[in-house]
């Protein structure tokens, strides 16, 4: 057992480094469980509400998102919870344990910390064993506490067995994906590619389950997510998926430990792919360069927003039944006729989708700040591109991504939402979203303004965005002074479906967005570059 010498010491030492992050993730996952169980027991206490929800949930888009309908003939709170919360919680837990393992293995190696420890009388496998111990602790605490939450806050339909099973499902997801990440950490050439490969596999498992649920059900069982979902806690309470995955996880762990003894520190068993000796013409193009920097987040955002638009769009046909009886939502939407209710509901959803689309666009501007902070902007400044040009390129990509994501998600949303109800046409829905573009550009303008004058304060843009979200979401719920609402470009955007005239306000907003940008450029041309 020499290979494991000093595991205990490393575990305690690692805990000091880890406890804050682990608590954060634990709180996040448990918070998710809590919100689910609490919301369902309070909002959907009445069987009729749940029946309406069950109908709303029985369409391909929702089943793709959450999993196949379970317990449809008796849609209890427990069944509803298992149906809608399981896949999401499993994925969230999986993300946390993948990050935990990579952080404690390959990242440590790359920082040179393991090298320091390896020089001391510490076993060869001790560090990996310590990382696995952290995973096991996290897994155990997560399972127990979520079981406890479900017992305490669940209603009569949520049995003790179901609660324990749910907790075990979450633990299994944590253990399985943690073990998988550990195995991949042995193979890949860097911590980054270990993380990327783990997440890609998680994505593959997610999609596998969707395809399996829709057509070939054996594919569902090839996906750990689908397998665990099949346990159907609070409905059929099957335990065998947990047992199977536990055995697989143990095998993965064993292989990972074996491979660990076979590889050199700091490198994986699979050789690093060698890259290009020459830059593509895309990279050498100023716009292509920024797009290359932002490629991954922009693709992820576009796809996520499309999925969100698809989901929201598909429930539009059942809006009436959804709203009936839900006091909170009724209060937000003050209307009478079905036509009007649907129009207002559409307006709110489109506003939310639009506000979310501002996030990736702002991230492009934040990237510019981080380029500067990490001393990489100096290569552009000391080159032949002027400051105005550099800032304009980033802004163009930012506004371009606004445009593309907004059009893509609106098209998705409009086609789906337009075809499930007969009151409002696809074109009307699409245009009602397009009118948000000037308001959205204002945020890019503000980001440019902050960047030009006070780049260290760039994160203020997130506060401004949160404020707008707050006004949008709760503007009708609480009594709020009008001037507070008037500070929000989203509030000022005319209600196209409500028949308000659009031209003047939109032109004013577009002009202010442009002015912010111009002032930002003036500031950037005058100021010193930050040093990292």
């Amino acid at each position, binding site marked *: 057992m020499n290979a494991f010498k000093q595991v205990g010491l490393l575990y305690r030492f690692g805990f000091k480094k880890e406890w804050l992050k682990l608590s954060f993730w634990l709180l996040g996952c448990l918070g998710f469980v809590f919100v689910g169980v609490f919301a369902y027991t309070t909002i959907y206490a009445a069987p009729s509400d749940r029946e309406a929800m069950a109908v709303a949930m029985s369409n391909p888009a929702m089943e793709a998102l959450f999993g196949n309908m379970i317990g449809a003939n008796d849609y209890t709170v427990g069944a509803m919870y298992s149906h809608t919360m399981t896949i999401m919680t499993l994925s969230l837990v999986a993300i946390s344990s993948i990050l935990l393992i990579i952080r404690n293995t390959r990242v440590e190696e790359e920082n040179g910390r393991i090298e320091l420890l390896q020089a001391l009388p510490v076993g060869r496998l001790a560090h990996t064993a310590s990382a696995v111990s952290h995973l096991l602790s996290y897994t155990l605490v997560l399972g127990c506490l979520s079981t406890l939450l479900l017992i305490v806050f669940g209603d009569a339909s949520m049995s003790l067995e179901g609660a324990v099973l749910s907790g075990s499902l979450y633990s299994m997801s944590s253990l399985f994906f943690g073990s998988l990440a550990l195995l991949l950490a042995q193979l890949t050439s860097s911590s980054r590619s270990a993380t990327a490969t783990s997440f890609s596999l998680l994505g593959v498992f997610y999609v596998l389950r969707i395809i399996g649920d829709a057509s070939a059900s054996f594919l569902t069982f090839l996906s750990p997510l689908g397998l665990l979902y099949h346990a159907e806690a609070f409905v059929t309470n099957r335990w065998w998926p947990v047992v199977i995955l536990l055995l697989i996880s143990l095998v993965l762990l064993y292989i990972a430990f074996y491979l660990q003894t076979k590889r050199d520190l700091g490198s994986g068993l699979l050789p*690093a792919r*060698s890259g290009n000796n020459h*830059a593509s013409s895309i*990279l050498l193009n100023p716009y292509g360069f920024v797009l290359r920097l932002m490629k991954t987040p922009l693709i992820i955002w576009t796809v996520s927003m499309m999925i969100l638009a698809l989901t929201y769009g598909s429930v539009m046909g059942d809006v009436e039944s959804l709203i009936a009886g839900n006091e909170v939502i009724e209060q937000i939407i003050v209307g009478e006729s079905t036509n009007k209710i649907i129009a207002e509901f559409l307006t709110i959803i489109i506003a939310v989708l639009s506000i979310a689309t501002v996030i990736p666009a702002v991230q492009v501007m934040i990237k510019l700040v981080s380029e500067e902070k990490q001393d990489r902007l100096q290569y552009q400044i000391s*080159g*032949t591109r002027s400051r105005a040009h550099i800032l304009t390129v980033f802004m163009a990509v930012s506004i371009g991504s606004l445009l593309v994501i907004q059009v893509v998600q609106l098209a998705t949303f409009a086609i789906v939402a337009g075809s499930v109800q007969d009151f409002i046409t696809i074109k009307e829905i699409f245009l009602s979203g397009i009118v948000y573009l000037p308001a959205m550009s204002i945020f890019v303008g503000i980001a440019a303004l902050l960047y030009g004058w006070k780049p260290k304060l760039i994160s203020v843009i997130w506060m401004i965005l949160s404020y707008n979200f707050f006004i949008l979401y709760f503007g009708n719920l609480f009594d709020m002074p009008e001037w507070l609402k008037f500070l929000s470009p989203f509030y000022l955007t005319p209600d196209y479906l409500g028949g308000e005239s659009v031209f003047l306000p939109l032109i004013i907003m577009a002009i202010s967005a442009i002015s912010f940008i111009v002032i930002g450029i003036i500031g950037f041309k005058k100021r010193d570059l930050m040093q990292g």
Partner: protein
Amino acid sequence: MTIVKIEGVSKSFGKAEALKAVTFKMEKGEVLGFIGPNGAGKSTTIRILLGMIKADSGSVSIFGKDVWSDAVEIHKQVAYVPGDVSLWPNLTGGEVIDLFLSLRDQAVDHEKKATLIEAFDFDPTKKCRSYSKGNRQKVALIAAFAAEADLYIFDEPTSGLDPLQEKVFQKQVERVKKEGASVLLSSHILSEVEKLCDTIAIIRNGEIVEAGQLHQLRYLKRSEISIESTDHLAFLEKNDWIHGFIHMSGSNQYKFQISSNKMTTLIATLQGLNIQSLDSQPQKLEDLFMRHYEKGVGES
């Protein structure tokens, strides 16, 4: 023709005064060693030269143009290598070299690039994430030398290179100098500066404390004399042109410094004495540098 002209440049960051009336210039074809302790203001001066930060007062010009307002025009003919080369982790070294060249509006000369990559013994197909400090510097150096420029600005470019690649760097500097380019070399490696530079500027606490032609500076300074003699030479100490006199205890060795123009006086004084050996070393840049580095020392 004056390539770089810095006159009375001051720069403060908040309350900290980074540069105080810095003045020096560089002529065409000159290699200037810009030396000084850490935090003396070398990088600040270079950042001003490249239009990254703006001087509070004074005037700075390259090729006779203002470094702040004509930055784009100037940069067409300037190659720059920073001291700490920070790169994009997910691009390869080869990609970044091409990118750096395109940022200067230069087409990639593949043959030249390949020659330099081989000379610096560099693998351009790896992601920058995996490069060491030295390898990251090579990326910037290869990009700098792979295209023509009238002025090269290097900020401690060889701090991560091994001695073999330092030689490659020196060769490249000699090449561009031969082609008529000017080089501003900020460095800690004094032997390198001595080898490559015609002029130097020493900066300390934001002030230029010494500037001029290297050989002239050395001429003005002292020579290190060491003498072995069976005669008693302690009387030499009394002369006011002899500095730092030491009689190595229990031996016939004497060490002291004289101004180089006092050599004749020294030889006349030693006339008729029994001298076994006399060694005279011109003072090295390092000695000069140390005088400015260590406050108060060297004043005697």
